């Protein structure tokens, strides 16, 4: 993040003024007088912040969550910072590395590239939700067996992507796997072991 001296930031006082007005007006219309008094007592930002949040229902790994989130919160940051599901990793925040891959209604998605509020009513599965209790998912087993990782940081994303890759029918050959897994970077370079793990699961024919 750079401080740009030349540019007038579009996000300065005008936003604040807007918030002040809108939040206070809305507050006056909808809520009891203590809030209005609070706003008048220069607590307007806090009130504004409360009104900036949007209700959101999500099912994450089978658990229902009723949340209020800022529209600018990404699904990734919601998972990591608010739901404390840190198994989903941040490797770039720009959809370029795949570390943040989760399943949304069964599809693989870069969670850093979507806002949490876009997923109202949807079902999210993260790496924490893949195993059945103590029993690892076959893809997790295969990653351990084939040593499909080193530092482990890209691993949750690789595994979520690998499961989807098999489900999508894109694990037909080594070449196809490499192509359909290329959105998941492993800087440790465990690629051939990851491919071996995926092939093992695919050939084992277990249900993924």
């Amino acid at each position: 993040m750079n401080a740009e001296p030349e540019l007038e930031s579009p996000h300065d006082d005008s936003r604040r003024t807007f918030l002040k007005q809108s939040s206070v007006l809305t507050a006056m219309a909808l809520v009891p007088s203590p809030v209005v008094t609070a706003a008048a007592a220069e607590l307007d930002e806090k009130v504004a912040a409360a009104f900036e949040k949007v209700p959101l229902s999500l099912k994450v790994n089978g658990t229902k969550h009723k949340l209020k989130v800022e529209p600018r919160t990404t699904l990734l940051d919601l998972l990591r910072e608010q739901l404390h599901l840190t198994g989903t990793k941040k490797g770039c925040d720009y959809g370029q590395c795949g570390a943040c891959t989760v399943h949304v209604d069964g599809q693989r998605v870069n969670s850093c590239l979507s806002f949490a509020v876009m997923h109202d009513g949807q079902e999210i599965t993260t790496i924490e939700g893949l195993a059945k209790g103590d029993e690892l998912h076959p893809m997790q087993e295969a990653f351990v067996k084939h040593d499909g990782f080193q530092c482990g940081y890209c691993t949750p994303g690789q595994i979520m992507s690998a499961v989807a890759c098999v489900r999508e029918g894109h694990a037909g050959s080594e070449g196809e796997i490499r192509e359909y897994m290329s959105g998941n970077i492993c800087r440790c370079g465990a690629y051939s072991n990851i491919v071996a793990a995926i092939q093992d699961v695919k050939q084992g024919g277990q249900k993924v």
Partner: protein
Amino acid sequence: MKAQQKQIGAPMNRVDGHLKVTGAAKYSAEYELPGLAYAVLVGSTITKGRLTSIDAKAAERAPGVLAVITHYNSPKVPGYDTAGKDPSQPATVGGPIKLFNDDKIRFNDQPIAVVVADTLERARYAARLVKAQYAKEAHQTNLEDNKPQAFLPTSAKKNPKSPMADYQRGQADAYKTGAIKIEGEYVIPTEVHHPMELQSITAHWEAPDRLTLYDKTQGTLATRRDFAKEWGLPEANVKVIATFVGGAFGNALHSWPHESAAIIAAKVVNRPVKLMLTREQMFTMVGYRPYTWQKLGMSATPDGKITAITHESIGQTSTYEEFTESTLAQTRMMYASPNLTTRYRLAALDIGSPIWMRGPGEATGAFALESAMDEMAHLLNLDPLEFRLRNYTDTDPEKNRPWSTKFLKECYKLGADRIGWNKRKLKPGSIRDGEWLVGYGMGVGTFGAHRGGAHASAQLRPDGTVLMQCATTDIGPGTGTAMTQIAADTLGIAPEKITFELGHSDYPQAGTQGGSSTVNSVGPAVQQACLALKDKLRELAGAQNPAFASAKKDDVALGDKHLSLSSNTAARVPYADLLKQAGAASVTVEAKPGNEGQQYSMYSFSVHFAEVRVHELTGEVRVSKLVSCADAGTIINEKTAANQMKGGAVGGIGMALMEHARIDDRFGRYVTKDLADYHVPVHADAPNIEVAFVNQPDLKVNALGTKGIGEIATIGVAPAIANAVFNATGKRVRELPITPDKLV
């Protein structure tokens, strides 16, 4: 008691594999602390000059903001007055940035402010409201422009025996008068480590004089030392926790400004503070492999004996630290050239400091040396492998000492067989497969088998399990797994009974994980701790059963629930009785290297063979096969070791074909700012990589016979690919990366 299977060498699954595949492994930004606040850095938009003002008012008023800290309002960091005078970092002259200490701008994106808020979104938003004014000065960010100002490193000026000093054997620059000679200039551009985990730290002042850091570091003790010093605290008051490190490849071998920022921020807001860099900031703030220019001249006799080599290099450093690396080391010892000259210089640029990146200088130097070997072999009409064999040396020609062990010839043989080297044709462009030209190339790598002192503790618990601890870290190679295997064999118990804890500065001391030295150093400490534990148990048991008192040291056998003797299994003392008084039996030992390092030249060796396909029309290069063979001493875990070799080879593919961090010199700013512009190898770029180990112990390095793998996995890969490209196309590319524009 069941005879235990030998664990050393076995392809055991990683002990932390389960945690890594379930998402339960916690990295430095993943600790939940009460009252946690978030910090976001604001970077300078100029490259050199001074800050004249910072307007933080809007940011301070933004919702949720707890503080905006700049050099105008930062608390005084007590250690800044003495910082940078650290004798334990001999390669560094000058000192790291003292964050928020003055108005000076030394590089683009240097942190000028840190914004702290109660949520990440709020901190990130407010950071954009900080405005700065500067007085700009002219900057220098181009090494080629600055070659005339290159200088001898201070370490070499002070000590003519320093590896950075000019080196000479035989006649200086003798290649110039050789009958058959080559000469070429080589360039390695700036490359960035880019581990998948963004550099992160969570700083927590647990008391005004007690600091806990959850940090991405390769050395818990080095980080503790740096920040204890920065804050004038006793080291015992600083805790550094790095249980899991999401890759680093060298970039966590140094303490960086963002770490100082998080600690200052946590002090100001009096809450734990988490700071995670963005991918752009990974280019500017946490080091990189420096842009390096090299020139190499070589002469040889018609029958393929090298007569002279001169290898010169100019590497990039910053204006405030002198960063040096061993770019010319391999040239001095790899081939038996009677005349040899090396000259290493630095050029200081207005960019943040570099830091060792996997295979560090050796990988850079090997690109020039091994490319030149290929070029000379071609000129002599010799097979490049044969040319290397004719110049093979059985003693170290640099130090005139025997090698501790050297099985490089065995590596050549293993690798040549596997790649099918006999398919290679001397004449470039001879083999084609449709529109693709096929070529074969090789490159050799070497790295010192370094070993330092290390401590480890071992504790037997009444249930017969053993807890071991060491402050070392594991950035990915599988340190905990290898140590568990060593302990299992030494104690004669199943690995499942052993827990090896690492990554905590309170644990027994060990060096930083770098320079392929961890197993060499920590392995013997683990082995000796286990032996000491056995002896302690024998002593304890001796008080209860005389058979133990008279038994030989290593006769004790650890059973499931009791201690016995291998020579007398009837002699038994249950652990419950043995440990009744003390609760547990613990030992802590230190293992130190002897003076073998003065008598022998100790190196790991590798050779990489590449098969490439180059598209005739587009110049696209695909590595279709890679074979890496290593003489790395004893292999502790075949599975993780092979994985590490493959990873190094993938890094080498990046170096050879894609990695290039580019600066727009007009602004001194990187134009490659993310992983879409800075390409690293993805699945589709990585071929099947075959790995073979000679697996012969080097008992001069340590009693386990290990020599180290991490660096030699990368060193020599880039020239192997460049040489294969030459064999396919007849084009010699001396400036990496080999992008299609250089081939069409």
